[in-house]
């Protein structure tokens, strides 16, 4: 198969530093304002009020979070709003030591999928854990799958109806 591999040209850092390669630059500016709609709109409004809510489907009896106006299993509209607790269980977590551009972080972030109490089993949301340590080892010592956690909310006057109205979840 060797004849069918094209000898494409790999560039090295020096090629740029020594000005042998020309590039054009364009910033990618995409500006969007997403309509949150009925389900997520209410979800965000309730966050501002310091509450987590889900939607229940009468047929499969699941309580879903993030909430949606349709049940993807039954393909029918969901029926009722359900007030959830702001506590839950860590389904999985990571200790992330780099930012999106691969810069190293001084203090690692701890993203987690958290199953929310009051929703059906396994219904998690993405958020971060806090008050779990400053270093990899500390965090791995304190956090495990199955850890019970509770939301730490922003003070009411600082909330804006966003997922970040919860600052993080901490162990309970």
């Amino acid at each position, binding site marked *: 198969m060797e004849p069918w591999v*094209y000898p494409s*040209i790999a560039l090295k850092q020096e090629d740029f530093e020594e000005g042998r390669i020309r590039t054009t630059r364009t910033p*990618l500016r995409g500006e969007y304002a997403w309509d949150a709609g009925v389900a997520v709109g209410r979800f965000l409004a309730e966050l501002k009020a310091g509450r987590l809510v889900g939607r229940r489907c009468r047929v499969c009896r699941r309580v879903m979070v993030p909430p949606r106006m349709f049940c993807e299993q039954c393909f029918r509209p969901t029926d009722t709003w359900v007030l959830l607790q702001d506590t839950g269980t860590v389904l999985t977590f*990571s200790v992330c030591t780099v930012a*999106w551009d691969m810069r190293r972080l001084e203090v690692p972030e701890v993203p987690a999928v958290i199953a929310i109490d009051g929703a059906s089993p396994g219904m998690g949301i993405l958020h971060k854990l806090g008050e779990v340590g400053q270093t990899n080892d500390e965090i791995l010592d304190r956090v495990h799958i199955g850890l019970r956690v509770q939301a730490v909310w922003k003070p009411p006057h600082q909330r804006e109806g966003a*997922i970040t109205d919860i600052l993080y979840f901490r162990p309970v």
Partner: protein
Amino acid sequence: MAGRRVAIVGAGMTKFVRRALETGPELAWEAASKALESCEMTLDQIDAVVLGSAPDAFDGVHMKVEYLSPGAGAWGKPTIRGFVGGGTGVFAAIQGWYHIASGMFDTVLVVCEEKMSSCHPHPQAAFNYIFDPTTERPLGPNLLWIFALEMNAYMTKYGLTKRDIALVAVKNKRNAAGHPAAQLADPDITVEDVLNSEVLAWPVQRLDVSPTSDGAAAIVMAAEHVARRVTNKPVWVEGVGWSLDTQYWTNRDLSYPTYVEEAARKAYAMAGIREPRKEIHIVEPYDPFDYKELHHLEGLLLADRGKAAELVVLGTANRDGDMPVTPSGGLLGVGNPISAAGLMKVAELFWQLRGEAGSRQVPGQPKRGLAQAWGDLMQVGTVIIVGI
């Protein structure tokens, strides 16, 4: 009411490199022209073009199918770009299949291209936009998060060690040593190297991850009557399947890829395969991260749940083992220009089944292989089974 028989008759690719001098359309041309050359066909013998490319944000180009079309030989031809994130490379071959099996076309050129290096400061930037804009993106997530979350769920559920998983990276980077297009081949890599590499997002470390790459791959597909004229060794498409799971990934059991199983079951049914562990001779599962190869082998029903690591530990998955897994070197070794890497896996099966894989050749004259890719929010499985 099955469609017409379809064969792969030619394949070509570029070298996979960290940063290529070539533009995206130029890379597409390099792979497409090599694929045509390999089966001594010319562009005017091609009825339609299928293009594959993953997120547009890499190239920073909107409507990327048109941008790539001149290089991919698509000028004036029916051209279409299917898209299932990281699953696109294998899916492009599936699209080529349905173009021909439907009776609509006799010959199709399938081209997959990715130029990730155009994206600054880092290609990961493009992936920030895969998360839900309202409920997730404000948390500032990055792509590594979801892999790390999935890997941790998988390891914890089955009690797997980092060492078991790291053996996949070692196997694939060593396998890639014989691949003329490879970017990260390393014949001398050890499991300690992987375990000692920088922690990015625990449990994910630097050498658990495939690199970002520029590159392209292409195959030529043809209906039976054309295929038999073009080559005496057509590689037949025996089964295809694809499946997309719920977008609510935080509501799913991340320890098992149900979507891969759904896709595999469709492909096995179409190919008439009842015992995949005996009937599949070579596997090229998607391996952007080492644990993903194991995860996917389980979804493909080629290993029991939680047991895929044993195939690697015991050597069953080695090139000369009973079920060679990723003899190409995969994304971990050859490189990961997303869609092109998926199609490279299909091309590898083409070369292996024809006995043309050189120093990577799997012994014992394998007759049937499976390639699989995966993508989106850990959500889509694409599977193709080919045989000779």
